[in-house]
Each structure stands twice: as structure tokens, then as C-alpha cells.
């Protein structure tokens, strides 16, 4: 189940990971990750808190060194050739990485200098990016006085100052409203269309759908890696969700009838090849009252639930891959 599947046959590799493991003392945050990402791909990393997302992300972004295995970004080793990797990449962090008291323009200018652009070129680049992202009008206001969505766009602009070939986004839209998120991803799509590789982590399912391929990660391992469509096709058919007055009676009854009730809590989840055909019968004969019934296409959430027995966003999920990987500097509170 692990390992690259369904990789396009052509194109150069933007990311190449082999046997990557990371321990924090006793805790194994990553337990052998293999991964290839092609240039120009939009690649999403999905998993619950503590699954190892942030650790993998940090290693690829040259912020941490792996315990064993290797990772190459743009053909360069992320430990031995950090400087080369850094010249070709940019990162948008979950936390703000712009100086709130400086204006957007000043922030971009300084970042340009930091990345080695001459002052005049940094100025031109800043102006062009502010235009592109629709921030030109508010460019000379302190960043603290921008809206949440504008600030996130400014973060994206900051990351683009150097014209990176690969862009790492770590929960880049956390806390934004739907509109702002849409605006943000519209820009990311444009970037990917121009041949840049985009590697991102997210909590929002609909954002992951943007990706060409998704890696589902759990307890430090990749449990599935495929296109969103193929991942969902794995479940086959569709999903029935039921809410009943007596959940245990319903489960027992369903099991007797050869169904395989899944999901936890009040909501029962059934996977079936043809949900619409069996639902009427279930509703008619169920020995307890059905309060709510829903049929839908499998979502990524369902795929994850099926593969790991747990939800993606639910609480109390941190397995042994636990806290350090997930909560430090990344997907923590």
C-alpha cells in the first residue's frame, strides 16, 4: 500500500523521498516514507494531527534533518545541499511570517534582499507581485491593517518573491473564510499551471481535491497515494450515512443482513456498490426508527476512515506518531 503509485511516466522529479524516518527520542514520527513528485504537480499531504505531516513537511523544507533515509528536492539532498534546495523553493507557513508593522511592500522588498536580489530588482519584483495578487491598493499600509485573506495573499507573495520552482504550503489557509480560501487557491492554481510544483498540507477536504495526487498519511506512514478520483474510486459505489434512535440495534441488524456498518458514534456509515438500490429496503425494514439518511459519493474523509478506521479531523487521534511531529511548529493549536 505504501510507495509511489500511479506516478506519471514523464517529467523530472521535483521531490524524491526514500525510506525517510524521523525519531524524536522514543517517538517515531515518520516510519519509512517513499514518495516521488513530478515537476509541475500539485501534491497534497493529508492526515490527522500527529500523523507526521509537519515532520515530513519540515524535512522537505530543510528545517529538520531526517533520522534515516534521504530526501531530494529539485535534485538536491535536503541535508547536504540545503543551500541549493533553498534557492529553488519557498515556503508559506501556517503562522504569519511577515512583519505586521511593516507595509506589504516593505516586507516583500526585504525578503527579496534576503534572497539575494539586488535592491532595484527586489523593488520591481515586489511591485509586480502586489499587482498580480490584487494587493496594490493596500501595499503601503502596515500588514497588521490588512484583512485575513489579504494577509495570506501577502504571505503567498512573500514566498513568490524569489520565483521558486517548488512551493511548500503548510496549512496556508487555516482560519480563512470560504471566499478568501477560494481566492488563495485560484492563485495557487495559476502558479501550478505555469509549471511550478506545489506541495501542500491542509485540513480542508475541498482544498485537497485541487491536488493532482494526494498522500494520506497516518502514524508516520503513507497509507494511500493516488489522485483524488482514484482514491475515492477505491471505495467503489457510494456511502450511506444513517442516524437512528438506537444505534446498537441498527448495527446488529445491518450486520445480520450482510452489511458492514462502519464509522463511530451515532452516525453509521455503510459502503455499498449501489447505495440507492438498497436504501429503500433498509428504511422499510430497519427495526429502529431512522431519523436521517444520506447517500453520497465517497469523500476523501470516507477513504481515510475506511483505511485507518479513524476520521481525518476528529479529536483524540494522535497515535504513537504523536505530538512532537504534529504539534511542533505546524499543525498544532
Amino acid at each position, binding site marked *: 500500500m505504501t510507495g509511489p503509485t500511479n506516478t506519471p511516466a514523464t517529467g523530472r522529479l521535483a521531490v524524491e523521498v526514500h525510506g525517510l524516518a524521523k525519531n524524536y*527520542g522514543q517517538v517515531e514520527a515518520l516510519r519509512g516514507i517513499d514518495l516521488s513528485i513530478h515537476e509541475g504537480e500539485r501534491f497534497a499531504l493529508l492526515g490527522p494531527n500527529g500523523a507526521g505531516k509537519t515532520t515530513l513537511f519540515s524535512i522537505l523544507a530543510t*528545517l529538520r534533518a531526517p533520522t534515516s533515509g534521504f530526501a531530494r528536492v529539485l535534485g538536491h539532498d535536503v541535508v547536504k545541499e540545503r543551500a541549493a534546495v533553498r534557492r529553488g523553493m519557498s515556503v508559506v507557513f501556517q503562522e504569519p511570517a511577515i512583519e505586521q508593522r*511593516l507595509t506589504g511592500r516593505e516586507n516583500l522588498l526585504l*525578503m527579496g534582499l534576503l534572497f539575494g536580489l539586488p535592491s532595484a530588482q527586489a523593488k520591481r519584483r515586489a511591485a509586480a507581485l502586489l499587482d498580480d495578487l490584487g494587493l496594490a491598493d493596500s501595499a503601503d499600509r502596515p500588514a497588521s491593517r490588512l484583512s485575513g485573506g489579504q494577509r495570506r495573499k501577502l504571505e503567498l507573495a512573500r514566498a513568490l518573491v524569489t520565483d521558486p520552482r517548488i512551493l511548500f504550503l503548510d496549512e496556508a489557509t487555516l482560519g480563512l473564510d470560504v471566499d478568501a480560501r477560494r481566492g488563495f487557491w485560484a492563485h495557487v492554481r495559476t502558479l501550478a499551471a505555469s509549471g511550478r510544483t506545489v506541495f501542500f498540507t491542509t485540513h480542508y477536504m475541498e482544498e485537497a481535491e485541487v491536488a493532482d495526487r494526494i498522500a494520506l498519511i497516518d502514524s508516520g506512514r503513507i497509507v494511500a497515494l493516488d489522485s483524488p478520483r482514484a482514491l475515492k474510486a477505491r471505495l467503489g459505489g457510494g456511502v450511506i450515512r444513517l442516524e437512528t434512535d438506537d444505534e446498537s440495534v441498527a448495527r446488529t441488524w445491518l450486520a445480520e443482513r450482510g452489511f458492514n456498518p462502519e464509522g463511530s458514534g451515532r452516525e453509521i456509515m455503510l459502503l455499498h456498490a449501489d447505495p440507492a438500490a438498497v436504501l429503500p429496503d433498509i428504511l422499510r425494514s430497519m427495526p429502529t426508527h431512522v431519523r436521517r439518511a444520506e447517500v453520497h459519493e465517497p469523500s476523501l474523509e470516507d477513504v481515510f476512515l475506511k483505511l485507518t478506521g479513524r476520521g481525518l479531523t476528529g479529536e483524540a487521534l494522535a497515535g504513537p506518531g504523536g505530538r512532537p511531529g504534529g504539534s511542533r*511548529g505546524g499543525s498544532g493549536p
Partner: protein
Amino acid sequence: MMRGIYAILVLDLKRAWIDRARIIAGLAQPLLYLFVLGSGLGANSQFGGSQYRLYIFPGVIALSLLFTATFAAIVIVFDRQFGFFKAILVAPVPRSAIAFGKIAAGAVQAFAQGVVVLPFAPLAGVHLGILSTVELLAAMLLASAAFSAVGVAVAARFNSTTVFPVVSNALLLPMFFLSGALYPLQGTPHWMQVAAHFDPVAYAVDLMRGAVLGRFFFDPWLSVGALVAVVAAVGWEAVRIFNRGEDDSALGAARFNWRR
């Protein structure tokens, strides 16, 4: 490398400039020492009030440099709490350039704060000639660099904004008291004189006092050498700490960091 240092320097100075009101507020402490403590203690000492103010004037400048440089270094600890520092760490800038840039930025801020105190010299009974002004400024510059290096090297180890101020106070006050900023080292107990030899602030104070009064406790070249050595040694240590963060920490400090 040079461009990296320049970028960090510009970045920090721009941010400091936003808080330029701090320079005025930063005057309170040295003036308090000079005119309140100086007048009070001076009146009751063998110096006599005006003589004492003249005597501690260089010490008060050192105080100003020391506290401003350390305060500037706190920015490193603050930045760690946000993604700001991470964005700098993933830039293709050598960690040594980040360390040197931070040291330079702290030194410039400290020096500026020290210069602001100078116009009060006549009120303290200090009359500076051109030559002694130049000497004093040179000594201040060297001292600023040394104090800033110490501040950065210490701050680079911490990521807690509550711990660092406590630790830095525990370091700053002994360094200040042992420096002879407020009294001549000649009259102090032997152990204090010995301790002063290990205190960079003592060399800085002595060098500045020499520039103002023409009297030295240490050989001036020893003081210059000691301060240059501090800049080199502590600067190297700061680079080492920043580099160490390469291998295992998202934020650049290996200690006090992810294990909570």
C-alpha cells in the same frame, strides 16, 4: 554573505525605527543614574556631587549600550514565536550571515542610544574635546559590538520570551556592577578586581572613562584587545548556535525547544 548580513541589518533597523520612541524612553534609565543616583551618592561620597557625576558618566553610557544591545537581541526570541524567523531560516542565506546581521543590528541600535546620551555630558560636568569625543565614540562602537554579540549568543539559545529576560537580567546586573561603572575599581576588594578582569563591561567602561578623564585602570590596548576578543569569540559562538539549529529544530535553537 555580505548581502545576507545587509538584508538582516536593514530588516532589523527598519523594525527598530518603527519603535523609535523607544530611544527617548531609553534615555530615562541613564539620566536617572546620572542625575539622581549620581547626585545622591555623589553628595555623600568623597568625590563630591559634581565630581561623581563626571566620574560615572562613561559608566552610564556603558549601561545604556549594554541594556539596549540586550534588548535588541530579545527580538530574536520574539521572532521565534512567529513564523517570521522560519521564513528567514529557509532563505538561502548562510546562518553565519544571520548571526552577524543580528549582531550588527543590535550594535547599531545600542550605539545610537549611547550617542543620544552624549548631549547631556555638559550637565554632568563633562567637557569633551574633539580628540576625546572621537576616542569615546570609537570605544562606544567597540563596546556596542561586544555587548550585542553577547546578547545575540545568549538569545539564540532561548525561545521563551519569559525566560530570556530573567536570564539576561541575571547576567547583566553582575556584569554592570563588577565593571566599575559606578565606583573606581582601585578601591574595591581584591576579588572584585579579579572578577572585573573577566567582565567585558569593565574593559568597555575603562576605555570610555579613559577617553573622558584620561585615567585608565587597565592598559587601554588590553581593553581594546579584550573587547575585540569578545566580539570574535562570542560572535563565533553565536554562529555555532545558529548553525546547530540546522540539524534539528524548526526554529534554530536546539535546546529549550521542542521537548515540552
